[in-house]
């Protein structure tokens, strides 16, 4: 490991004095390329990253408050979307992929999934009222059996985005070698590999800029959905020991983060969008920005990662993925994916992004501006997330 050149406390002092040098991950690519990692480490304090993409393992933990006679809800719905109510009294969790209870799903294939948990979350952030329905079996201490009322985000006593798995470090590129359209969570895939759909924000992605999660851990303060959020540990399916290329970038989907953030404190529905994925289901597009402190030359090197340094595995969602076959058809760079075309088995395939690069960049720029204004200080992670 390289000699530390500065600490997070020193960076925060510079931010408070308005002297910190903040670059977006895109700007850092050019700086490291032109001046080298040693000079970049001296010059730059923080690199801001960003990503805006559907992240299906997301949801809202909420408390809707008692209305005497009090109740211990056992079944809860928001706008007819079922919530998980196996918690205390009036606590419940709404998952973003939960469809409305009367949704026809895939009975008429491909289903439209027009409204689900993610849409409820977006509606609440838009200030819209949603219908809360709760049923209870009744106890001596909690006699109420039923509650049916309209609530807004302001009416809820507590509402946190609580996302068990976000910010996947790398992801599959999806193609379909079959003979019929495959409607997947990676979007519709035309037969005969006529499109290749890819995700992540490449050189802007948080976990490509800190590939060994040296600075991102439990307690890292982040930009989440326009407000403030926190990393609260490794996400589900986090892979601590992925195969990597020579500069440490994982070759397949690997690291993940668990995030939380207060929906009542500055979140903006522009960055938390309910989405409908044709033939697949509902989800939530989440905007995340993570600041990376440039503590030493190694961190300057890592944040200097460019689209050309990142490769992603192409997999067949027409057959292999369903069957659990771990077969990689090609390993194009993110730069090639962005060019609009890649080669898979000698065939030229048109590439289609699912993560908004434009909005991911905007997040990195917004976080940069927030730090420059002294409104966002960095935090020290309290526990590391294993990544080797």
């Amino acid at each position, binding site marked *: 490991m390289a000699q530390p050149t500065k600490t997070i406390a020193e960076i925060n002092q510079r931010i408070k004095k308005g002297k910190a040098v903040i670059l977006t991950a895109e700007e850092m690519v050019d700086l490291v390329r032109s001046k080298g990692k040693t000079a970049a480490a001296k010059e730059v304090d923080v690199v801001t990253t960003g990503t805006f993409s559907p992240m299906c393992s997301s949801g809202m933990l909420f408390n809707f408050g008692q209305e005497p006679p009090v109740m211990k809800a056992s079944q809860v719905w928001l706008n007819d979307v079922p919530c998980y109510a196996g918690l205390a009294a009036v606590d419940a969790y709404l998952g973003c992929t939960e469809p409305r209870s009367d949704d026809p799903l895939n009975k008429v294939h491909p289903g439209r999934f027009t409204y689900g948990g993610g849409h409820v979350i977006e509606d609440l952030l838009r200030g819209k009222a949603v219908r809360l329905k709760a049923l209870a079996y009744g106890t001596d201490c909690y006699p109420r059996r039923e509650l049916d009322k309209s609530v807004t985000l302001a009416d809820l006593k507590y509402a946190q985005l609580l996302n068990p798995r976000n910010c996947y470090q790398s992801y599959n590129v999806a193609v379909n070698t079959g003979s019929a359209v495959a409607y997947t969570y990676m*979007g519709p895939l*035309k037969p005969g590999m006529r499109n290749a759909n890819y995700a992540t924000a490449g050189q802007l992605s948080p976990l490509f800029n800190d590939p060994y999660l040296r600075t991102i851990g439990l307690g890292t303060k982040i930009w989440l959905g326009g407000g403030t959020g926190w990393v609260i540990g490794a996400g589900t399916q986090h892979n601590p020991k992925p195969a990597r290329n020579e500069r440490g970038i994982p070759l397949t989907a690997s690291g993940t983060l668990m995030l939380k953030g207060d929906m009542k404190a500055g979140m903006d529905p522009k960055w938390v969008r309910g989405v409908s994925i044709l033939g697949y289901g509902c*989800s939530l597009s989440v905007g995340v920005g993570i600041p990376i402190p440039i503590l030493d030359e190694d961190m300057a090197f890592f944040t200097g990662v460019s689209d050309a340094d990142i490769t992603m595995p192409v997999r067949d969602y027409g057959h292999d993925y369903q069957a659990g076959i771990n077969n990689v058809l090609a390993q194009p760079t993110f730069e090639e994916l962005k060019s609009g075309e890649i080669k898979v088995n000698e065939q030229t395939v048109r590439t289609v992004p699912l993560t908004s690069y434009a909005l991911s960049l905007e997040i990195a720029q917004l976080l940069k501006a927030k730090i420059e204004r002294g409104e966002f200080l960095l935090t020290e992670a309290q526990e590391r997330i294993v990544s080797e």
Partner: protein
Amino acid sequence: MNEIRKIVHLSFSPETSGKPVVCNIIKLYDLCFNILKAHITPREVGEMILEINGLEKAVSDAMDYLKEHGVKITPVGQKIRKDEASCMHCGVCTALCRPRALSVDRATWKVTFDPEKCVACGLCVKVCPVKAMETQLENGTI
């Protein structure tokens, strides 16, 4: 005289949908067209989407001819709308847009919509995750 290409939506009332007026524009104005969609409802209301190629004057005369015969004409671009405030610029729609009316601008990484190229197939309406594409037409199939 300029050769032009135009995509139009024609709607026919029950009184006009039974009459063969469209074929006349080939004979009378020497136009070439491609029928992208044609449909008559059980109530005999008809609709058709045509991609027309020909001299500018001839196309314009043919449009007048159709109007005189009771056909309502709307440029297809006006039948499809992109809600800029809602679009997340992800790019999913671009996978299915065959005429490439929807494309990702590689400089700004924003999704742009060119109504001139649109053939109103409606696939984007179906696939857009945030329903940012709206149409007054029936949706297509992949």
